[in-house]
């Protein structure tokens, strides 16, 4: 049993995803506290570029497990490969991002290994040599503290944007070791027909430092263009409350809240959103909240750091121009 802390790295087009870098930063700190190493585990078809990118972000060791059967992602292949690697190396803690992939395979992996698992961790600390996580519960009406049992491998599925991406140190390199884990096509029972990209010009919600979000106050699908333009200028993602989803103005994956996504960006800009408890359930963990609403009594103002009572149709276009100007001109 090694005191190492692993991160199972997610990547896309030869780049580690932001969440994996966040976790690597935290893994470094926890490994220090536990007296082990920060280890990045990178499964995929050809991951050499990803593997090289991880040293500067704090990995001491990078394990790669390459197999064409690992792409596209399936729960079967991922569980098999990560499971075998963990069985072999027995780290004390494994960090997995709370993403569509992580939420899919991490519980399966835990069941296979009989490992303790805590999902949607909003913090992870070593407290007197015990490992303790906090997580939102009861649709964010409460925060739970969960203590892991001390034996065996422990799995933490960690929310995006709770830990910062560490400062890259270009001089730092990690030892890269290739792991050979046999994988049989017959073990992969599901078949991915395709992954249809939802065409978006903006960043995915879970990767964004800034989210601009629209509610029923936007009045129709065409007006989401106002948010798109602002998001593009800010390098932000676009989200929504539930009514725009229910009315079919935006796809379901825009939805933030109790039945949608939980986000915690640096800035959440709520436009034409009243601030119902079910919406707050998804965004009240944001670092900074700005709200634009024409109703001075909108409940969203009770938690906004900056509340603007005004008409979003007047403000948004001007705001986009001002942001472009502040960023040094329109670059596209």
């Amino acid at each position, binding site marked *: 049993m090694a005191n190492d802390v692993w991160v199972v790295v997610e990547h896309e087009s030869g780049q580690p995803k932001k969440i994996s870098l966040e976790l690597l930063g935290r893994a470094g700190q926890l490994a220090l506290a536990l007296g082990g190493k920060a280890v990045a585990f990178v499964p995929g078809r050809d991951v050499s570029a990803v593997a090289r990118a991880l040293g500067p972000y704090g990995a001491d060791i990078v394990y790669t497990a390459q197999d064409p059967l690992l792409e596209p992602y399936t729960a079967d292949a991922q569980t098999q490969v990560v499971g075998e690697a963990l069985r072999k190396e027995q780290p004390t803690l494994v960090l997995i991002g709370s993403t569509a992939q992580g939420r899919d395979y991490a519980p399966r992996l835990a069941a296979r290994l009989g490992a303790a698992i805590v*999902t949607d961790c909003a913090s992870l600390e070593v407290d007197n040599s015990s490992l303790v996580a906090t997580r939102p519960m009861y649709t964010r009406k409460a925060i739970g503290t969960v203590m892991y049992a001390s034996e065996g491998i422990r799995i933490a599925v960690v929310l995006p944007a709770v830990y910062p991406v560490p400062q890259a140190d270009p001089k730092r390199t990690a030892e890269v070791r290739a792991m050979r884990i046999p994988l049989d096509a017959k073990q992969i029972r599901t078949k991915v027909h395709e992954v249809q990209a939802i065409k978006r010009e903006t960043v995915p919600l879970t990767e964004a430092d800034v989210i601009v979000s629209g509610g029923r106050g936007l009045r129709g699908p065409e007006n989401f263009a106002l948010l798109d333009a602002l998001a593009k200028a800010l390098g932000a993602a676009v989200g929504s409350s539930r009514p725009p989803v229910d009315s079919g103005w935006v796809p379901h994956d825009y939805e933030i809240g*109790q039945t949608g996504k939980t986000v915690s960006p640096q800035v959440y800009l709520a436009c034409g959103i009243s601030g119902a408890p079910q919406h707050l359930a998804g965004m009240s963990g944001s670092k900074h909240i700005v709200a634009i609403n024409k109703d001075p009594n909108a409940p969203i103002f009770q938690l906004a750091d900056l509340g603007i009572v005004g008409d979003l149709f007047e403000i948004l276009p001007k705001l986009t121009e001002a942001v472009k100007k502040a960023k040094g001109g329109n670059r596209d």
Partner: protein
Amino acid sequence: MNIVVCVKQVPDTEAPIRIKPDGSGIDEMGLNLVMNYYDEHATEAGLRLKEQFGGTVTLIAAGPERTKEALRTGLAMGADEAMLITGPGLEQSDHLGMARVLAAAIKALPHDLVICGKLSTDDNASIVGPALAELLGLPQATAIAHLEVDASATTALVHREVEGGVEILEVPLPALLTVERSLNEPRYPSLPGIMKAKRKEIKTSTSTDQKVAASSRLTKLVPPPKRQAGRVIEADADKAVAEIVAFLKNDAKVL
């Protein structure tokens, strides 16, 4: 087609919860307990497949005696059978332990599909579904937003939302699915359905699993940190824009 739907009883999300003063959990006095709403979507998915292919929908829940109420909701929607697993060990169980108890019961039932909710609205864990798939040795698809089973009932075609896209996945049956709310619109129980559900026997069994001992445990529950209201400004658009830009620059430091 034999369909098993896993159902959990949870506090109604519409109502506030009261956290016990010692932080050990929530106060259940006067709490309205309902079927986890993702499980309503799971039940609906099961009922639609039954309408298409014939067969049975069996509901299964692990929990205290009161959980029967949630099962009756599902029976009233049209499920054929309901089973409750109780047991002294369940209280201390974590989600993996719960999955183990459910797996043991489901193994004894014919099942072409096992359907769970994407998550429970009390624990918000999203663990039981995929863990159950592993313990039953079934392929899985989680948080699905679309479901079609082919005419010969051998594979399911599902859509699941992933970051920036939709994954279209073919899963051979038997399989385990967990469902997203956008999958369907759950039906309301009909009056005759409610009457029938009242009379229906709910089979109860006691879990003898000695290994439900938890590998993680909730030690404290607190309300989320209260956010302070900040400044609220009523101004013309230009002033408002200036305020937001200044905030983004100076406070949030993203500009």
